[in-house]
């Protein structure tokens, strides 16, 4: 198992475009936005905070959505389409291990990306370290598992790797939109934000865990349910070939 994780890690890092986007892009976006003076000045529009404070949780949404809904379904569907999973099922090792290894590598990448964002936010812009680290960690874990679950459902149901890419991109755009990545959340209508709060990876819960007091239990429960349902559907419908 260690060898599979090692090789999958190397493959992830070798795929420069993906690995750089996943790990570095959210932090780079923070640096770009933070370079604009108006966005690092407290403003009543942002609830007395700075724009970049309010956008902090969205950066995590970008990381998790990209990894869970772009990387995961693409790799898994491609492995199936190319017969990699089938090839493994002729060995004494069950191909489920390669999926587990994928999850480990992607969770590692997400963790690195988020840690980088938090560190750069603190050092460069003085964004507070997470007020409720445990709550934030829990939210990230549930948000990641919910999105990875959806990614696996897409990989399971899509007939081809191409189709998986297409479906995943639609899901990715929706999650990005509701998570405030395209238009910041203070500009979005109330109803959109209300929906966004209840979608994984829980943009409001992330914000609450990072710069608020604690994520609301309801937000976490929804993500746990999504994980459960998506995980079950993926396990029931997954085809190895």
């Amino acid at each position, binding site marked *: 198992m260690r060898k599979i994780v090692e*090789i999958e890690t*190397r493959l992830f890092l070798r795929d420069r475009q993906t690995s750089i986007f996943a790990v570095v892009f959210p932090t780079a976006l923070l640096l770009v936005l933070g370079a604009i003076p108006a966005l690092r000045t407290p403003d009543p529009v942002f609830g007395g905070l700075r724009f970049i404070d309010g956008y902090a949780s969205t950066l995590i949404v970008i990381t998790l959505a990209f990894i869970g809904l772009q990387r995961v379904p693409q790799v898994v569907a491609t*492995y199936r389409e190319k017969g990699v999973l*089938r*090839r493994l099922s*002729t*060995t*004494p090792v069950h191909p489920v291990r390669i999926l587990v290894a994928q999850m480990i590598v992607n969770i590692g990448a997400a963790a690195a990306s988020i840690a980088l964002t938090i560190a750069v936010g603190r050092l460069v812009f003085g964004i507070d370290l997470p007020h409720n680290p445990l709550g934030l960690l829990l939210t990230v874990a549930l948000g990641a598992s919910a999105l990875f679950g959806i990614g696996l459902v897409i990989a399971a149901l899509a007939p081809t790797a191409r189709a998986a890419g297409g479906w995943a991109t639609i899901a990715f755009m929706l999650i990005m939109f509701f998570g405030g990545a395209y238009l910041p959340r203070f500009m979005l209508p109330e109803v959109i934000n209300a929906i966004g709060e209840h979608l994984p990876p829980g943009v409001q819960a992330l914000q609450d865990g990072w710069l608020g007091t604690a994520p609301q239990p309801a937000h976490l429960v929804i993500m746990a349910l999504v994980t459960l349902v998506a995980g079950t559907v993926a396990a029931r419908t997954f085809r190895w070939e």
Partner: protein
Amino acid sequence: MAIIEVDDLRKTYGAKVAVDGISLAVDEGEIFGILGPNGAGKTTTVECVAGLRTPDAGTIKVAGRNPKDCRDLLGVQLQESELPERIRVREAIELFSSFYPDPVDWTERLGLAEHREAEFGKLSGGQKQRLNVALALVGNPRVAILDELTTGLDPQARRDTWSIVEDVRTAGVTILLVTHFMEEAERLCDRVAVVNAGRIVALDTPSGLVSRVDGEQRVRFRPSEPLALDLLRGLHEVTDVQDDGGQLTVTGGGNLLHAVTSLLARRQIVALELRVDQVSLDDAYVALTGGHRAQDR
């Protein structure tokens, strides 16, 4: 001693019967070929033996065990199975080595040593196939299943691959080989099962298969001096003589070549550019499968 025993194997996909009662036994150390046209059920048969598919009926034993319980004994090279584009040859070998207790590195013997750092996606067709063979053998299997090993390779790469298969057998591995190349079966296989429409239509050594077919022989030559064709036609072995601008084609059966050369010798005529076409496995195959000539994909 049979290491692979297949008894009355049946497998259906929806309404399509892929394998319709195949039985065969492969002896330890043998190279056993499965030959047949596309869609004949070859791949389904070996995939059942490899434990990748569950038969609808019939039993399969590999070394006395259920195929799904002996992945450690089996090395499999599948049709159309690839590796991640960017995995390096060395990494693929390391990865697959980690699956087995006693791995063997074939990269050197397969001529992959200088490509160890190359990525899978950058390898040529022949190199990919050799890597597939290396991965099939990495677990030190007792049985190797090779499905259309040389399809898509150029003639040189194909011949190189054949000598590899012979090396593998010399190392004591039993080989179940699926092919649709006659030349490959003839060169490598101890025995061949010819499969058509889900059934075995013949099971014999390559030469045994050839001798089943009462084919014609053809002797072609250019006589050093003009020769009356009726003399040739008078031989009872001869059924037909064609003269194509001095190039004679004599068709017949029995000991045709001897009859023709004796006649020429008596007349002190030399046969120039002499060629003899005998019944080949190709002809035997066409006769056995009812004219469904194998096609390259």
